[in-house]
C-alpha cells in the first residue's frame, strides 16, 4: 500500500508536467484546428530561458522559491513571445491552406528549432545541468517518502490550470477564444479580432509549455535541445486521450498518462513503455472522442 501511494505521488508529478504541456496542444487545436508539432520545443526553449536567466544573474546562488517563481514567469513570458512569433512567421501564412500544410510546417519548425539551438555556440550539443531553484527537502508520512519539490510542482500546476480555466471561462479574451473555437468566421463577423485571439492562444500555450519545462528541468535537471520531442508526443497523446480541444480533458489526460506510465513500470519494467500506450489505446477504443471530448460534427 505504501509503495502504491508512493508511486501515485511520482505519477502525479510526472502527470502534472504532461498536463501543462497538453493544455497548449489542446488550446491551439481548439482554436485553429491545428496540431502544433513544435509545441514540445517550447518546453525546451522555456527551460533554457530559465537556465540562462538563473546562471547569468544568480550564478550558483540558491535563489529561493519567490525569486524562482519570478524567474520562471519571466522565462515563460519570453517563450510566450517566441510562440507568438513562430505563429506569425510559420503558421499564419498557411492558415487558409489545408490543415496538413500547417502540420508539416510545424514539424519543420520543430526540427529547425532543435538544430538551430544546437548550432548556437553557447548552447551546443552537450547537456547542461539545470540549476537548483530551491532546496529540496525529503520527509516521511507513514512510510511514504515525499519531496517538497514534487509537492510544490503538483500544487503549482494545479493552481496554474485553475487560473487558466478562470481566464477562459470568465474573461473577455477567454470568451473570444471560445467563440473562435466554435466558429471562426462568424466570430470575426461579430467583431472579434481573430489574429489577436490566435496570438494570445499561442502566447498562453507556449508560456505554459515553458513553465512545464522549468518544472520538468527541476525534477530531471538535464537540459538538451532534443528534450521536448518525446515529451511533446506524450503530451499530444494525453491531450487526445482527454479529448482534444477541452482544457479539463488535457489535464485529466496528462495525469492519467503519468500515473499509468509509473504504475506499469513498477509492475513490469521490461514492457512498461509499450504497455502504457496499450492502456491509452484501450481508452480511445472505448471513447474515440477522448474522455471529456464531445463527438465532433463534421460540417460539409
Amino acid at each position, binding site marked *: 500500500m505504501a509503495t502504491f501511494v508512493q508511486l501515485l505521488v511520482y505519477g502525479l508529478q510526472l502527470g502534472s508536467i504532461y498536463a501543462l504541456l497538453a493544455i497548449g496542444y489542446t488550446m491551439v487545436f481548439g482554436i485553429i484546428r491545428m496540431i502544433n508539432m513544435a509545441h514540445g520545443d517550447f518546453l525546451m526553449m522555456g527551460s533554457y530561458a530559465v537556465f540562462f536567466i538563473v546562471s547569468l544573474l544568480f550564478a550558483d546562488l540558491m535563489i529561493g522559491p519567490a525569486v524562482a517563481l519570478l524567474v520562471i514567469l519571466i522565462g515563460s513570458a519570453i517563450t510566450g513571445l517566441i510562440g507568438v512569433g513562430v505563429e506569425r512567421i510559420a503558421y499564419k501564412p498557411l492558415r487558409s491552406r489545408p490543415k496538413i500544410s500547417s502540420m508539416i510546417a510545424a514539424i519543420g519548425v520543430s526540427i529547425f528549432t532543435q538544430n538551430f539551438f*544546437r548550432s548556437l555556440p553557447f548552447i551546443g*550539443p552537450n547537456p547542461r545541468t539545470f540549476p537548483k531553484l530551491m532546496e529540496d527537502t*525529503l520527509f516521511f508520512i507513514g512510510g511514504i517518502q515525499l519531496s517538497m519539490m514534487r509537492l510544490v510542482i503538483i500544487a503549482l500546476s494545479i493552481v496554474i490550470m485553475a487560473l487558466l480555466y478562470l481566464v477562459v471561462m470568465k474573461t473577455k479574451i477567454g470568451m473570444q477564444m471560445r467563440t473562435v473555437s466554435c466558429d471562426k468566421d462568424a466570430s470575426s463577423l461579430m467583431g472579434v479580432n481573430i489574429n489577436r485571439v490566435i496570438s494570445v492562444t499561442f502566447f498562453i500555450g507556449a508560456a505554459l509549455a515553458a513553465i512545464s519545462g522549468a518544472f520538468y528541468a527541476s*525534477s530531471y535537471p*538535464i537540459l538538451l535541445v532534443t528534450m521536448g520531442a518525446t515529451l511533446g508526443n506524450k503530451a499530444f497523446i494525453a491531450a487526445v486521450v482527454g479529448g482534444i480541444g477541452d482544457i479539463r480533458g488535457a489535464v485529466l489526460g496528462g495525469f492519467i498518462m503519468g500515473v499509468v506510465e509509473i504504475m506499469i513500470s513498477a509492475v513490469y519494467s521490461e514492457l512498461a513503455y*509499450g504497455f502504457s500506450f496499450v492502456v491509452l489505446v484501450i481508452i480511445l477504443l472505448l471513447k474515440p472522442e477522448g474522455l471529456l471530448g464531445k463527438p465532433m460534427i463534421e460540417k460539409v
Partner: protein
Amino acid sequence: MKRILCLMLTLCFVLAVGCAPAQPSSPAAPAAPAAPGAPEAPASSKVIPDEIKLGLMSTISGGQAIDGKNMTDAITLVSEELEALGGLDVDGKKVKISWVIEDTEAKPEIAVNAVQKLIEQDKVLAIVGPNNSGETIASGEISQAAKVPQITNTGTNIKVTQVGDYIFRACIIDPFQGIVVAKFAYDNLKITKAAILYDNADTYSSGLSESFKNAYEALGGTIVANEAYSGQDVKDFSAQLTIIKNANPEAIFYPSHIENIPLQLQQTRGMGITATLLGCDSWDYAALPDLVGRDVLEGAYYVTGFSPDADSAKDFVKKFNDRFGYRPSFCSAMAYEAAHIVLNAIQRAETIDGPGVRDAMAATDMDLPSGHVKFDEFRNPVKSGTVLQVRDGVAQYVTSIEPD
C-alpha cells in the same frame, strides 16, 4: 484484391532486383584515387597513392552528439599530427590523408546509408567508427561485403566483430567489461547483493547487464533486482528505483549511455538509496561529476579500457587537453587509437587496398595510449580493464583487472 496482390508482388520483385546488385558492385572501390605511375615506388609491387581517403562515422547529431564531438576532436588531433609531419610516411613517400565524416544520428538505418555513401561515393580505404554497437553491426555488414576494413572505437558488444573478418574494434568488449565490474564488486568490494538498472532498447546496455549478471552470479553473488527501462527518452526512473530500493542492494550497476546516467544517479540518491554506484565505460566523460553533481557521484566506481592517468596515456592526454581544453574521454581515446591502428596498418600493408590493410590491421602490434595493443583471433584487442573511482570530483585509478 488480386490487383493489390499483383501490385505487391511486382513491387517486391522490383525491390529485390534493385537491391541485389548494390552489394557486390563495389569490391574494387577502396583502391582510392591512385596516382598513375607513382615513380618512387619501392622494389615491391606496392602502389602508393598521393592521397588516401578514410571514413569517420559518428553520432554528430542526435542524443549522443557529445560522443560525436569527442570523436571528431580526436580525429582533428590525428590529422593535425599528420599535417605537422607533412603526411603519412608510407615506405618513404608522404601520403596525404583526408577524412570524410558521416553522421549516424545514433540510428542503424542512417549508419547503413552513411557507410554506403563512404564506400561507393567517397571510395574510402578504411572506416573508423561508428561509436555504437548497433550501428557498427548494421554498417559492418556492408563494409564486410565490400571488403573495406572498419574499426569501431567504442562498439563494445560481442556481436560487432562477429559480422566478419573486416570488422575490428579498439575497445574491450561488453562481456569482459561486465565480468570486470562483477569481479571487482565481489572480490574487491566484498559486495554480495547487487541490483541492475538497464535500457532494454539498447544493445550496449542490455549486453552489459547480462554479462554482469552471469559473471556475478557465477562468482556467488545475488542479483536482488534487475530493472529495465525502454529507450533513451525515459527520464523518470522512480518506478524502477522504488523496486530496487525495496530490494535493498549493496551496490547498483548502471550500464547505460551517458545521457541517462546523471538523472539515474540523481534520482537514486534523491530517493535516499545509499548503495555503492557501479558504472561502465560510458561513464568516462570528463564533465560527468559536474553534470551529476559531485556529492552524488562521490565514491562511485566505473570500469573503462582507458585511464588518462596511466603512464602510456600521459603524452596523448596532454596533447589533447592543450588542443581542446578538456581531458579526452574513453570515446576520444579509442577514436584516436582506432585511427592510429588504421594508419599504422596502411604503413605496413603489402598492398594499399581493403584486403591488404585488413591483413595488416589483424597483425597490429603497437603501443597506444591505453597500453600495448594486439588483436585476438576475433579482432578484439587484448588489454586489461581499468577500474576508476571518483574522489573529489575526479576519476582516480584504483586497479587493473586482467583478461582471463
